[in-house]
């Protein structure tokens, strides 16, 4: 697929940036004492232009109406303990991994710097069908049955290339998966056909909020029942590709606890500003503010407490899978580095203090991997996977961070610079232990 031409919004932004640059380099600005007020103006100006960019006008409408919501059959569980992926999974992982280690890894440095993933790369990701891995065959999907294990394997393979790009590529799948699992017939027939088309919508499941000690079961974003539907108010944090988002599944607190709402990008009252973070920068994260966002009754995806618990858990499994992929990248990178790097007349890998750190990375990495797989496999088998997801999250928080830190440490000062990817992995791996939603398997 040829690289896509920039959208109108992108052209607008780039023209804006040129203008900013010429103003910013002008000495006249300083002489006239105009720098501060101008910066202030440009700040709100860029916020405005992002708002305009958000919610590009895609019209979602049902092509054919489903009588009842389509639910997928579960993968048949074997009784034997077995870590062998199915042939289909092996095939998918191989194709994704080629793409990931070749294209994604190469683009990662610039995407991190630019806080954007090249559209051509995302187009390739769409060609691989990443946006529709959770969509049932009845609505044009390709997979026999939805599988959290398959999705985890894909997330892992992508994150081995880059976690931020993996998030940008897979976030829409979270929405299509949520719609497939829990959506009403109306929601499924309205939105799912778009996800299996040539250009699936940019979409994300939105849970995280900018509060300390955040707990997704006590949201500050509220959904108030009105005569005609619901009114949403609140602020959401680190939404992947926020500025482009066309479809959102938003978690909000109702009188009876958290519930999920399907909200289209252009809905009045939604506003978006860029929210770059420590890492995941390629995913162009943004902050979403909702001020009296009115949605119809039909926008309610689910108010079931069990559904919400499962969504949160599937998100945590997704982040654990991303951490596994990036940790594998760390391991493979430091293995080569410590063998090549010579100090005191021999490779530093001849020292136990160095070699044992590499061993510890391998030990903890495989631990996170197995606990993550078990959580996903339990979900696929229709069993309770909440606890297992919490355990995967716990390991991701502790050891994912540790592996990121050790990766930098093993390269010493070199690891601290952008000459090597380990500093980026350090930043990304911190996210995997704290993010909620955004990527739902």
């Amino acid at each position, binding site marked *: 697929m040829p690289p896509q031409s920039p959208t109108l919004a992108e052209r607008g932004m780039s023209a804006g940036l040129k203008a900013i640059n010429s103003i910013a380099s002008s000495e006249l600005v300083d002489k006239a004492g105009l720098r501060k007020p101008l910066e202030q103006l440009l700040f709100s100006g860029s916020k405005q232009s992002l708002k305009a960019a958000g919610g590009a006008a895609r019209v979602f409408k049902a092509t054919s109406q489903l009588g009842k919501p389509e639910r997928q059959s579960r*993968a048949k569980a074997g*009784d034997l303990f077995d870590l062998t992926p199915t042939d289909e999974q092996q095939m998918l992982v191989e194709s994704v991994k080629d793409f990931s280690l070749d294209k994604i890894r190469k683009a990662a440095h610039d995407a991190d710097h630019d806080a954007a993933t090249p559209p051509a790369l995302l187009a390739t990701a769409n060609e691989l069908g990443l946006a529709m891995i959770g969509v049932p065959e009845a609505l044009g999907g390709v997979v026999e049955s939805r*599988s959290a294990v398959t999705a985890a394997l894909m997330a892992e393979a992508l994150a081995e290339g880059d976690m931020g790009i993996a998030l940008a590529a897979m976030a829409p799948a979270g929405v299509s998966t949520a719609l497939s699992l829990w959506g009403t017939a109306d929601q499924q027939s309205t939105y799912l056909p778009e996800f299996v088309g040539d250009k699936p919508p940019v979409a994300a499941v939105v849970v995280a909020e900018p509060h300390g000690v955040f707990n997704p079961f006590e949201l500050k974003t509220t959904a108030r029942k009105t005569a005609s539907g619901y009114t949403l108010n609140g602020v959401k944090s680190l939404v992947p590709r926020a500025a482009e988002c066309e479809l959102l599944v938003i978690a909000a607190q109702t009188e009876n606890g958290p519930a999920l709402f399907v909200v289209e990008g252009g809905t009045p009252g939604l506003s978006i500003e860029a929210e770059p973070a420590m890492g995941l920068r390629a995913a162009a994260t943004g902050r979403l503010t909702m001020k009296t966002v009115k949605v119809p009754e039909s926008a309610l995806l689910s108010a079931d407490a069990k559904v919400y618990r499962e969504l949160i858990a599937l998100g945590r499994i997704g982040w654990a899978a991303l951490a596994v992929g990036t940790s594998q990248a760390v391991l493979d990178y430091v293995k080569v580095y410590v*063998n090549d790097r010579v100090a005191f007349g021999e490779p530093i890998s001849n020292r*136990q203090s160095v070699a044992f750190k590499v061993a510890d990375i391998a030990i903890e990495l495989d631990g996170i991997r197995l606990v993550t797989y078990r959580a996903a496999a339990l979900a696929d088998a229709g069993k309770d996977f909440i606890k297992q997801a*919490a355990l995967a999250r716990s390991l991701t928080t502790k050891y994912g961070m540790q592996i990121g830190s050790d990766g930098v440490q093993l390269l010493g000062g070199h690891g601290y610079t952008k000459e090597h990817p380990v500093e980026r992995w350090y930043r990304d791996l911190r996210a995997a232990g704290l993010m909620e939603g955004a990527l739902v398997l």
Partner: protein
Amino acid sequence: MPINLEIPRKYSQLVEQAHMAATHVFRANSRKYDLAEHTYPKELDMLAAMLDGMEQGGGLDGAGATGGVATGAAKKNGSKPEADPNAVRNGANLASVLGVTEMCWGDVGLLLTMPRQGLGQAAIAAVATPEQLARFGGRWAAMAITEPEAGSDSASIRATAAYDADTNEYILNGEKIFVTSGDRCELIVVWASLDRQAGRGAIKSFVVERDNPGLHLDRLEHKLGIRASDTANFRLEDCRVPAENLLGSAEIQTAKEGFSGVMKTFDNTRPLVAGMAIGVGRAALEATHELLKEAGVKVDYNIPPHAQVGAAAEFLALEADWEAARLLTLKAAWMADNKKPNTVEASISKAKAGRACTDICLRCVALAGTVGYSENDLLEKWARDVKILDIFEGTQQIQQLVIARQLLGKSSSELR
């Protein structure tokens, strides 16, 4: 079939039976033999006889209590015709890990001193000829490798074996320490060198009858934990054994292949020791969970740990570590059952389980406060018992060496 990390149903009976024995025989006598160190736990005789019977009857799918059983199971399993040689197998290694874990939930010290279940049987089964198997199989065999000056570096052992052509015997001399069940067993598998200049390839194992007059018991150790299990120190003084008691080939291998064959048994035994740690760790977690409940602390798996009370958050983190250790151990055993080379994974399982479960037990003691520390309950005992599992069958650091050498492609002279 899709990826599945659940325990197969076919092992539920095995696990249940092991749990019964662990509850009624091991737990029931746990404190008694912790206090009465060096006293023979006579209660085990009946259980051992029962296990022997089950094994012979095939009732346990060969998946009994220890490494010794693993070998019996391996034979049985091997004789079963498999329809598809490429089909995934869950066999003796997995079953043994499950059995061991369950028994060590009861008491790790008592498991280690189960009659006729010593690690020596694993060594015998690994290299014995059919004739040797007939003579030694099923008997209680201990392992004598470690020496005062040779611990982790078992290649540097000093015990010697000299061939006497006149009597067709080997004459063993040297000193052996840390022999588990060394006083109680019937046989001791002794590692000794045919030629100390020839290096590892000259190290052989010899079966010595416990009542051999050349075998002198120096003393029994007083230990931090696993006190139910005796640890003996021996002197071998012109200890004569028939030439037929040398296990495997008498040839001195030039390279290290002979020795690496010996080391290969670790690929099967290390996941078992990991399984032991997982059993003790689970005991500590269960007891602590009860205490937390009594104290009104609820562990919630939905709410992030940082939004819960400290004790709940810590408990969840310990459970996560335990689960990682458990799955790594099952993976190593699964690989062994499916003939996949698993040296790295076996060491990974032992390294993770050894350190995680020691950490778990010690932290559980702290969470439980004086209840955890007092002899009125078993938490303090588990915290003492579990430490050995990060030491024997290769210390934490030896596992890290094995893993790192493989990952980095290092020889033992490069990464020492």
